């Protein structure tokens, strides 16, 4: 790579972009005017809105079933409130009619007064206030009524006490005063910290995405890409030059955003003057946030660059950017959620880590070690994404991608090829939705029964139907082939080491993302022998998934995906298999087992081998959970429900020997048997 060339490309892209009106508007002008406008607009609108609400007439319907002196007194006091208009409709009272009126907002509240006697003979007024929490006006009516009634209650009580000659001050046993000790900076930090990460992340991405889509997809669209590809510049030089351009513009955007935000905040507080005291905005924190933003910016830029490289034109690039933007928004919103504190696990999840860290920085309450973990882990992701970008830029399939329009129709008389990536992906998405809604509700009703139905009807049946309808030969498509019996012996040997390795992975994930006890209990229940007995549990949790899930994944999905390369197929199938468990904590162990099962399917060219392996994994898990404490050998490995970590070494050695064994018994990998 030649630095001089990179600079040439960088300078040209910068010149080109700075002359682009869209860039100037989204990256430079918008941040400068957005915050002052937002601040002015919001503060004036809020005060006006509040005033308007305060002055609005609120219509209240009343149903007084008691109708005596005291109840009249209550109502009288309510009607003293200026904005309340009380309609006494006791005579033609019909609750449902008034609830309808409340719902269509013709009235703001409905009060019903009844009375009863306490066990000691005192009279109690039971007042029910119907209101609509989602309506501001209705909520305000409720608050006014509530506050007013509390006041009346005090009066009533003191009257009662007077009758029996007791001073009403006896009631003031405890008095609560609130004194907020948070300094104003921290209050501001608390409020700003909640929405700042969210705002900054959206602004960064939306600014960078306009530029990124233009830089490569835009060049494809305008036909200039070929001219630079045939020039003497290397492709990595082109990618890096463009990458630096996106980063530069994004940094400028973020800087302008922060500066504009800072100034408009300062302005607002200076206007508020005395009420907030004369304190300094935490400018050091803004600088720290900027430092934190840098790796995030480089990461976004790299992802956006990859998207742009992959897309055929700007429009396509923009539609691929949407999921990224949505995902980023969702993840950045964790700073709104209470109870989310930065820990080791969260500090490894991109965006979530920034969002939480920024909130902590604004609160002046952050831990330096997490700051380094976040920056470090993001930079690692960064390098990977830039590498992918360069790879994509070298791939002619990507650079000269033609329209991919493919019909999903496969009904008809002739044999149709359902073994293609697109069909399988659509099928998988439909299945995972079905699993979530239909399978989930079956299992909620009756766990065991639901599992059986899920396996047979949702996992096995659709595959068989697809293969029948598409007139595919099921036996050869699913590879129901004869295989060397010694393969089964090898699977048997590998079963325990694999289960332990997967278990250890689960333990490590648990360590990084501690999950709740109730979740672990639910998981445990699944593989605990229920009252139906051991053999039934083994059948439901071991045999059925062994057959049904293998037919779906290693039979159908892998057959389609392996066409693009054996390892590509095995790994993608394993990822889908992991995702199919609908549980982020089980994803990695499941995907790990998926790779092993895929390897078995490809290596032995027979689905029976992964079926046995899958059955063994699940069944062994049941046996170990329920009977490990009775076996002295297992006691050595599992202590306090934790697998000892030294197990990794012998397990890997056994696994290695088993893999060697497979290579001896199955020397040839047969590819694409159906062709």
């Amino acid at each position, binding site marked *: 790579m030649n630095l001089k060339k990179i600079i040439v490309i960088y300078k040209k892209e910068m*010149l080109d972009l700075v002359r682009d009106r869209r860039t100037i508007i989204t990256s430079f002008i918008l941040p400068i005017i957005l915050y002052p406008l937002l601040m002015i607009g919001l503060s004036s609108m809020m005060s006006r809105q509040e005033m308007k609400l305060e002055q609005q007439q609120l219509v209240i319907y009343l149903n007084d079933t008691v109708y005596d002196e005291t109840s009249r007194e209550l109502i009288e006091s309510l009607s003293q409130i200026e904005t309340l208009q009380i309609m006494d409709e006791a005579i033609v009272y019909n609750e449902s009619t008034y609830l309808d009126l409340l719902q269509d907002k013709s009235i703001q509240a409905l009060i019903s007064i009844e009375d009863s006697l306490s066990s000691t003979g005192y009279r109690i007024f039971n007042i029910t206030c119907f209101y609509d929490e989602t309506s501001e006006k209705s909520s305000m009516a409720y608050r006014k009524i509530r506050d007013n009634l509390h006041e009346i209650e005090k009066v009533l009580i003191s009257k009662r006490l007077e009758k029996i000659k007791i001073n009403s001050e006896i009631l003031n046993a405890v008095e609560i005063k609130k004194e907020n000790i948070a300094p104003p900076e921290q209050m501001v930090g608390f409020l700003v910290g909640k929405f700042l990460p969210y705002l900054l992340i959206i602004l960064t991405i939306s600014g960078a995405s306009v530029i990124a889509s233009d830089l490569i997809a835009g060049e494809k669209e305008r036909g200039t890409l070929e001219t630079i590809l045939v020039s003497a510049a290397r492709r990595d030089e082109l990618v890096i030059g463009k990458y630096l351009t996106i980063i530069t513009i994004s940094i400028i955007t973020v800087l302008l955003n922060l500066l504009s935000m800072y100034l408009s905040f300062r302005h607002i507080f200076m206007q508020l003057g005395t009420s907030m005291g004369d304190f300094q905005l935490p400018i050091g924190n803004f600088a720290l946030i900027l430092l934190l933003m840098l790796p995030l910016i480089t990461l976004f830029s790299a992802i956006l660059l990859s998207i742009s490289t992959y897309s055929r034109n700007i429009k396509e690039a923009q539609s691929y950017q949407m999921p990224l933007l949505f995902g980023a928004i969702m993840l950045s919103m964790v700073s709104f959620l209470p109870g989310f504190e930065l820990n080791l696990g969260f500090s490894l999840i991109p965006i979530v880590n920034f969002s939480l860290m920024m909130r902590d920085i604004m609160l002046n309450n952050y831990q330096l070690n997490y700051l380094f973990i976040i920056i470090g882990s993001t930079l690692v992701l960064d390098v990977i994404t830039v590498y992918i970008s360069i790879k994509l830029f070298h791939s002619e399939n990507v650079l000269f991608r033609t329209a991919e329009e493919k019909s999903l129709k496969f009904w008809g008389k002739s044999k149709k090829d359902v073994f293609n990536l697109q069909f399988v992906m659509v099928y998988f998405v439909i299945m995972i939705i079905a699993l979530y809604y239909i399978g989930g509700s079956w299992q909620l009703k009756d766990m065991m029964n639901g599992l059986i139905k899920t396996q047979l009807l949702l996992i096995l049946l659709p595959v068989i139907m697809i293969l029948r309808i598409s007139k595919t030969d099921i036996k050869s498509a699913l590879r129901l082939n004869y295989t060397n019996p010694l393969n089964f012996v090898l699977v048997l040997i590998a079963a325990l080491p694999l289960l332990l390795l997967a278990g250890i992975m689960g333990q490590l994930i648990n360590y990084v993302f501690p999950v709740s006890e109730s979740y672990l209990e639910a998981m445990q229940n699944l593989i605990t022998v229920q009252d139906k007995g051991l053999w039934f549990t083994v059948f439901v949790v071991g045999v059925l998934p062994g057959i049904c899930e293998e037919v779906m994944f290693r039979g159908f999905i892998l057959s389609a995906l392996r066409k693009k390369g054996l390892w590509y197929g095995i790994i993608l199938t394993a990822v889908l298999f992991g995702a199919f468990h609908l549980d982020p904590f089980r994803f990695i162990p499941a995907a790990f087992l998926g790779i092993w099962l895929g390897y078995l399917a490809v290596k032995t060219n027979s689905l029976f081998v992964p079926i046995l392996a899958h059955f063994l994994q699940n069944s062994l898990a049941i046996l170990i959970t329920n009977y490990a404490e009775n076996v002295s050998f297992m006691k050595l490995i599992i202590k306090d429900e934790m697998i000892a970590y030294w197990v990794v070494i012998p397990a890997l050695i056994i696994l290695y020997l088993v893999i060697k064994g497979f290579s001896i018994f199955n020397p040839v990998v047969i590819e694409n048997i159906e062709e």
Partner: protein
Amino acid sequence: MIIVNNLTKVFQQQNGEDLYAVNDLSFTAEKGEIVVLLGVNGAGKTTAMRMLSTVLQPTTGTATLEGYDLEKDPQNVRANLGFLSGDTGLYARLTARETITYFARLYDVPESKIGDRINEMADLLDMHDFLDKKIDFLSTGMKQKVSIARSIIHDPPVMIFDEPTVGLDILTAKNIISFIHKCKEDGKCVLFSTHIMREAERIADKIVMIHQGKVLAQGSWDDFKTDTGLHDLDDIFIHYVNSINGADV
């Protein structure tokens, strides 16, 4: 010069079948010679030229350009090559001068010589009036001149033109053709692709007819005429197509 040996490019289609876009293409183009790749749309001309400009990688076969191998030394291949096609674009927000300067730098033209080179180009192509205007404000003809200038700014010994006259009016197209003649006079090796028979006849020293990725015939028009006994160019082309395909074209 260009030496092409058994160049083949296979694309994997969506239905999993292989498409031979270029199938066993061999020819040579000498210094000071204009070689025309002649074929209908979809014959494989663009794919062949993209391979020669190292944008696409050949599936099998080799080619050298000024002695540099396509796959082993793509950097030097591109440095010795000027590439112009009918559908390449320009950066609308840059001026003509900025555009040409950018490419001069990408092609490692020494900074001290760039100004002189641009003046030479402007003299040759009559571009002085609009050198400092933004591309957005130029007419098609002017843009085409900028494209030519950017493709030849590094004075490459080999020029590849991929259907450069497609969609141009007669006057602009004529500019290009006369520019190609100028290249030949300067002793450059020129490879030119077109689907227009007359255009091929007018400028070619040698014609390589390709159809469905395969070479139908190569030689001069005179060779073809004596070979087939026909005189009309279209007839000659159809004759060769039929000779490999049966009579279904």
